[in-house]
């Protein structure tokens, strides 16, 4: 029996309350705490040294820190890379695997494996593979007569190239997840639609363009949103593989916030970078929400 009047304690709010308490305790409180720290100068050693400095950290960040802008640009490059490589590759592989391939299930599982491995491990493994002196990649390429392609690992030491290796690693790590999400939606498409199209004389390509892709629209938005958010908060791969170098060329906002907040004992300044990262991520997230029509009721 549904009560006529929904009260605070008897209604849906009661059910939301436990989650909200956890959310407030572990997300909102640290978030507000970080914002509060961003208005201070503090070395993290003693609270006696904590000084309120207003928006000075923000001023320094926006007007006197070229590394911040470099890190922001790198984050956006990661976002682009994640959307282009991770999502498109995931979609392409998902479509291929739906063609009833031999060993299709095996490949489906195999492509997901990178996503289950710790990013730290992935970083270390790639670092070992790419090492110019001891890595296996160059040895394999040389042994099969592809010497002109050796030296890829040296890209990690070049400011303009290093980030592309990191984007590749990130895409390799994440495309299996995108594929899985696309596959789950593909499985839910009514086969009668394809059958009807076949009767009407549609080719395989037309089926993909006019049935599959339009029906993947909502799930694509989810995949793009997640890939974007992961790319915005990316930390482990640049930290493990290049430590943000050379000369900050692969620095991202999270590593820069970490360096200041924890390594350099600039708790206030590190918090400022973290706050800006959250705000930018929120803006991009909201834009994606609006542009893709996510959150709207299904007709």
């Amino acid at each position, binding site marked *: 029996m549904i009560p006529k009047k929904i009260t605070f304690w008897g209604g849906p709010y009661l059910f939301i309350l436990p989650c909200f308490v956890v959310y407030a305790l572990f997300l909102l409180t640290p978030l507000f705490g970080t914002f509060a720290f961003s208005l201070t*100068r503090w*070395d*993290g*050693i*003693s609270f*006696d*040294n904590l000084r309120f400095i207003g928006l000075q950290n923000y001023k320094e960040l926006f007007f006197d820190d070229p590394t911040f802008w470099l890190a922001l640009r790198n984050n956006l490059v990661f976002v682009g890379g994640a959307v282009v490589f991770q999502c498109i590759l995931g979609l392409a592989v998902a479509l291929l695997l739906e063609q009833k391939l031999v060993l299709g299930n095996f490949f489906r599982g195999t492509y997901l494996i990178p996503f289950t491995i710790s990013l730290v491990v992935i970083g270390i493994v790639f*670092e070992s593979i*790419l*090492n*110019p*002196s*001891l890595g296996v990649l160059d040895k394999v390429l040389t042994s099969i007569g592809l010497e002109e392609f050796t030296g890829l*690992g*040296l890209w*990690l*030491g*070049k*400011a303009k190239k290093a980030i592309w290796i990191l984007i590749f690693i990130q895409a390799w790590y994440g495309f299996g997840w995108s594929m899985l999400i696309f596959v789950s939606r593909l499985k839910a498409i009514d086969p009668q639609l394809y059958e009807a199209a076949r009767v009407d004389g549609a080719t395989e390509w037309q089926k993909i363009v006019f049935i599959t892709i339009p029906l993947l629209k909502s799930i694509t938005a989810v995949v793009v949103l997640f890939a974007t958010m992961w790319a915005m908060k990316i930390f482990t791969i640049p930290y493990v593989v*290049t*430590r*943000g*170098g*050379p*000369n*900050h*060329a692969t620095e991202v906002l999270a590593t820069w916030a970490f*360096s*200041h907040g*924890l*390594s*350099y*004992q*600039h*708790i206030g300044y590190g918090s400022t970078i973290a706050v800006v990262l959250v705000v930018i991520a929120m803006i991009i997230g909201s834009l994606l929400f609006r542009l893709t029509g996510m959150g709207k009721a299904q007709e």
Partner: protein
Amino acid sequence: MKKKGKMSKSISISLTIVFMLGIVGLVGQAIAAEQVTINLWTQYNDPQDRKAIEYIINVFEKENPEVKIGHRIMPNYESDQMIRTVFAGGNPPDISLSQDPYTMSKTFEAGKIMDLTKWYAQYGDRFPESAKGVSRKEGKYFGVPDTMLTAAHMFYNKKLAKSLGVTEPQNYTEFLEVCEKAKNQGVIPLAFGNKEGWTGGTLYQMYLFETVGLKGINDMIDRKDPEQGPYFTDPGFIRAAKYFNDLHEKGYLSEGVAITSFDASKMEYLGGKALFFFTGSWYSSFDFPPDFEWGFFRFPHIIGELGYNRDEGLVAYLGKMQIATTTSHPELCLKFLEVFSRPDVMHDSFFEMGKYLPAVAGAVKPEELTEFQEAMVAFARTNTGSCGFMEPELPPAVGMGQVWTGLTAISADEITPLEFCESVEKVYKKELVR
């Protein structure tokens, strides 16, 4: 009837067993309640270091059966950050090992690390003055050093040197000549990876001993005023950066030096691919020691530089055990430090197992020293002046920040030595203003 009796008998037995178990559990809990746990965080990651500290923990626990040491090993590169963070968070472990003198002396000033002056009055004569000096701040002691480290020697593969037809260089010019010969014969002259930056920091400091001398380095560490020198843009500091850059420009270092880690360069050397290897005295403690005959010589002095006629270098007692003032068991922590610094315990652990020279005087008899350790001791005794690692003495944003990042950038050909010095100076000035 008989069946019922049997059943009640088994129920009684079961209940008795449950009761007994309960009693055992209660007694166990009572014993456990009496047992005290002391949290110890260290960065003894390498197998031999781990064995050494576990040996010490065992000695302590045997002597104090009511105490359990909860030992946590932190990852080496992140350990100092972890220690800083945990002290900032207000819940540090009872005892911790730090290699970050800059922050820890400030943490001590803030009253978060225990004053060990009384403890030193009782056990201080176990240490040489040089070890005590680095554990002291304005007459008060805040840490107990573990081992002595030096970075004053260059190591080489004797077999490879013989096959290349080269001998130990007597000065830097000769060293460069040998490097050229090795390079021309397809051998990496100097195995050197600078991905992490600290390796570059140590090598840069060796050049600084030559170009600005010990006083120049100490003045830089002690600098308080942003408008007063010495500056990183002073000629000696730039020259040292140029020497550092030259090695890489001439192709004497490992390929991809900026992305090669210390461990990878170590593997190049141990694998017989490189002639020289520059590192600190922990060379003798490697978990995989070289399986070839190796030699060592004093880091070559540069003709015409300040350091040529001097014998200044790096002698450090970097790792220090410290007690947090928040501990509930200060007496037990002090007791642990007593066991930790006992000469016989240090001998059996860090010397025997870790192949380190303990900071504790008299822990090792002279006849037990290897040839290299003898040279270390001789250098520590006879040098004309020494100091510890420069970067951890500087503010973290300068030393472990811009110095490391900048030297890696030099190795990657991304900045020039002058740009490196300017960037470090800029950050240092900013830090001094803060």
